[in-house]
């Protein structure tokens, strides 16, 4: 009997801490800045517990019934906390407010638990023993929870189902208490029915958690979301799994840290290494600074102008340690100038000319992005180049979106460039296509900068050979008044994605 009572204390303490950890972890995943999130969640939670403890003095009668009811409420609210917050994040802008309301509500309820329990038990034990035992098991429960959370709960169950499991434990303790303290409970049947009801709800939640979390954005990504922010222009999401850091812009994968070097080396070096006289480089898009990192390998390059629409993006990649490690601090390098502007009007208005340009825009998924792949855009870009200048353009996959790829090639050609299509294999993307577009004849370089992990000068010419399943197809050029590319792209990718 005594043992069972203290096991209850252990369990409800564990549950209380789990909800706190769930809130802290969710906030860190979804909002970033884990120090701030954990600090405010823990502080808010402890404060709310204090409020709960203070409120307990107003409960004078029917202590056991009240205790059971509170257990059920904690179980319900805490158990569903993670699912509710994930949904709030996916579907509302009010995640932060929801988070702190949840923390306060669960905290107040959890704060009520131990004072009530101690008052229920005060006739069974000496005060001295009671305080010592209850608090011992309370802290032991916290230890158990804090170890189980990172080692078992998150990896095995995930946050949504983990929280639900502990909600079930809370409700279980409530049911169990109706037997433990039946001598102090006038009408246990009704309470037991409530317990069963709550258990059933949480059990159903457990079963349905898969589909709940599939509604939530976090589950769109295979890996843990470590950063997510909606800017004026897009949704930036970073995920991390072991050493693989991935960037998604509005749901589209931009790079995986495990193989991005293949993509960025292929994007920059076939063109830039062939222009040893180049001094001024323009990068359009590429706010992740990874193309800039490759450009900065050339000591002869005097200036890099990087034009990216989204200031949040360049700020993030200039400041976040994980990301500046990846781009080698390219965005804060003295040779790099960042311009946050819309590339098309910027090209029209900006002065200056460039020896080499890297065009690294997201794929043409809509007409707004499609404008950046038109003859009008490329003609304007050509005017910003010096006489022997060249451009490297990321051009989607020649294998999965063959028409789209060759449409970009055709568009550059009709805009007056000599085109040199090439491709490389990037595991996280698959077979990927690029176009080198030059104003004068082009020959692949004999020499590449030191320190590359993928490209070699000897293997470079192979990139320009296309196997027959990705070879040229008859397509129209993409024009402002007839954006065929967006149609090709949508049609082709819809065939291979569900």
């Amino acid at each position: 009997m005594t043992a069972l009572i203290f096991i209850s204390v252990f369990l409800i303490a564990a549950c209380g801490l789990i909800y706190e950890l769930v809130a802290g972890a969710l906030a860190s995943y979804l909002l970033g800045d884990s120090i701030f999130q954990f600090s405010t969640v823990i502080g808010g939670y402890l404060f709310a517990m204090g409020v709960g403890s203070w409120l307990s003095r107003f409960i004078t009668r029917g202590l056991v019934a009240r205790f059971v009811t509170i257990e059920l409420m904690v179980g319900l609210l805490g158990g569903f906390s993670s699912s509710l917050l994930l949904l709030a994040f996916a579907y509302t802008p009010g995640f932060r407010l929801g988070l702190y309301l949840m923390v306060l509500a669960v905290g107040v309820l959890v704060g009520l638990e131990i004072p009530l329990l101690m008052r229920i038990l005060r006739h069974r034990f000496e005060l001295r023993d009671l305080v010592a035992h209850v608090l011992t098991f309370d802290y032991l429960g916290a230890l158990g929870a804090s170890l189980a959370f990172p080692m078992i709960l998150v990896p095995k169950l995930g946050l949504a189902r983990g929280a639900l499991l502990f909600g079930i434990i809370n409700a279980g303790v409530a049911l169990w208490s109706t037997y433990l303290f039946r001598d102090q409970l006038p009408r246990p049947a009704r309470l037991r029915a409530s317990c069963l009801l709550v258990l059933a709800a949480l059990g159903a939640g457990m079963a349905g958690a898969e589909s709940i979390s599939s509604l939530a954005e976090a589950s769109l990504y295979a890996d843990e979301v470590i950063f997510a922010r909606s800017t004026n222009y897009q949704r930036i999401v970073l995920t991390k799994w072991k050493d693989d850091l991935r960037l998604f812009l509005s749901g589209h994968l931009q790079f995986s840290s495990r193989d991005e070097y293949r993509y960025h080396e292929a994007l920059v070096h076939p063109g830039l290494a062939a222009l040893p006289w180049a001094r001024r480089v323009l990068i359009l898009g590429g706010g992740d600074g990874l193309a800039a990192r490759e450009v900065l390998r050339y000591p002869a390059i005097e200036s890099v102008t990087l034009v990216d629409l989204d200031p949040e993006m360049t700020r993030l990649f200039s400041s976040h340690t994980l990301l500046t490690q990846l781009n080698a601090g390219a965005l804060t390098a003295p040779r790099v100038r960042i311009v946050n502007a819309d590339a098309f009007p910027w090209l029209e208005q900006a002065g200056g000319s460039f020896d080499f340009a890297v065009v690294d825009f997201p794929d043409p998924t809509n007409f707004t992005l499609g404008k950046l792949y038109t003859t009008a855009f490329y003609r304007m870009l050509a005017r910003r180049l010096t006489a022997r200048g060249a451009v490297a353009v990321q051009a989607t996959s020649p294998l999965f979106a063959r028409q789209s790829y060759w449409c970009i090639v055709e568009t550059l050609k009709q805009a007056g460039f000599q085109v040199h299509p090439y491709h490389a294999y990037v595991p996280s993307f698959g077979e990927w296509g690029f176009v080198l577009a030059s104003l004068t004849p082009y020959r692949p370089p004999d020499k590449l900068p030191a320190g590359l992990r993928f490209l070699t000068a000897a293997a470079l010419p192979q990139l320009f050979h296309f196997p027959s399943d990705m070879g040229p197809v008859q397509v129209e050029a993409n024009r402002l008044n007839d954006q065929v590319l967006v149609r090709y792209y949508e049609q082709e990718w819809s065939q291979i994605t569900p």
Partner: protein
Amino acid sequence: MEPDHTLKWGRLSACGRPSGRPLPRRRFLSAALIGLCRKTDRPIAGSYVNESDRPGHRLRSRGPLRAPLEEVRVPLVIVGGGMAGLSAAWRLEKRGFRDFLLLEMEDRLGGVSRWGENDITAFPWGAHYVPVPGPRSTLIRELLEDLGVLAGGHFQERFLCHSPQERLFLHGRWQEGLEPVVGVTARDRDQYRRFEERLEQFRATGQFTIPADRGARPSPLDRISMADWLRQANFTSPYLHWYVNYCCRDDFGALAEDTSAWAGIHYFAAREPEEKGPLTWPEGNGWIVRRLEQRLGRFVRTSALVHRITRAGPRLRVLTESTAYTADTVIFAAPTFLAPYLIEDAPPVGGFEYSPWLTANLTLDRWPRQAAEPAWDNVFYDSPALGYVVATHQQLGRQPERTVWTFYWALAQGAPARARKLLLDADWNYWKAAILDDLARAHPDIRACVARIDIMRMGHAMIRPVVGSMFSEERRRLAALDGSLLFANSDLSGFSIIEEAQSRGVEAAERARRRLGGRP
């Protein structure tokens, strides 16, 4: 329907785009969660603007006008600074004839091509596009070449309407293109195809040309309405009827039931665009007006309300409030129905019926929440109005957060005089509510987006090509006048399109030049 077939202006793609976009974030959910009350509809500012009918009405009521203070002698006066008058001036200046003045009653040039501007963008008040001219439309091509729109045989891409051009709100969702494709049956599609074949036959006759005079032959088609013609040719598809009716309302301000079948067919059969178009600019055809104004400004007198034109021997006296012009020749490029009110012993002008129009420019502080990307021209099936055009659509970059929509409404229903009375009697609040109700069909949150609605009413916006009017003897006679008084408004052609205005203006300029001894 083949995606490359030609209806209206240019190639209309008929393939509906699946809306494979993620669900919008459900903001209402969060509002409920946070406990905020729903944002109530904001007050919307605005008024009637450019009340062009006011000075015009003073003319017609012959109200007290001051006697002119100054006498000016000039060989040629052009009355009216719309596209016809400007085209006359354009031709004269190009041919080196510079002894002329152009008088415009308003403070700004343009007529139905006038434009406005606010801190977001320029926007049109009327005519807002030029269909891409075919190789035989040499006159309009010459103008576009002069303005740098056409260079080396290619139209500047940025001036061609950007994708997506048009969309239609039909059965609760947006489809690309204006020809209905959502919910149409095989029979409808079959009729679309047959309609297209019939148009191809009409095209082949060579009678439907731009300008119309070049190929037009009196035809029995002018004796029935466009709707009658559809029925007689066994076109029963309600979608096709809607589409044809929409086109008549859009281009002529008239219902298909009232439009001459000849004019209706001309609309569909006369153009052979070589490019997906049309040509358009943020301020619509106001862009052309601005460019012509830069070039011709020195000949222009704005706020010059001509209230009387009298004979003085072989010459004409053109009276404005400040000046009396004595001219050897006058090109009357203002709407022709004004002639009897202004001109002493004016030739008879009967049978000119005009469509009343309303144009509204809506300033939006944010875009309505919607899944699809807005097109340039956005039309609602089963709406009495014509939809809206996005003034910022032609910007090269992304669409800005704030924008301007130009909402068009031809009051085609019923007799023009009654519609005109409704237009002029109703107050601004009436039209504001009507416009917002119409837009709310597809944009339920429109009232929370709009900050301002300015409305321009045009009682006589364009000539209405009613049944039996296309080969009017009276109009032909007016157009053919070759004395000291020349008529040049596009209404002489029976329908108001930019090519007609231009060719009428140029034709009158040539006659004036011959008369005044200009070099051939």
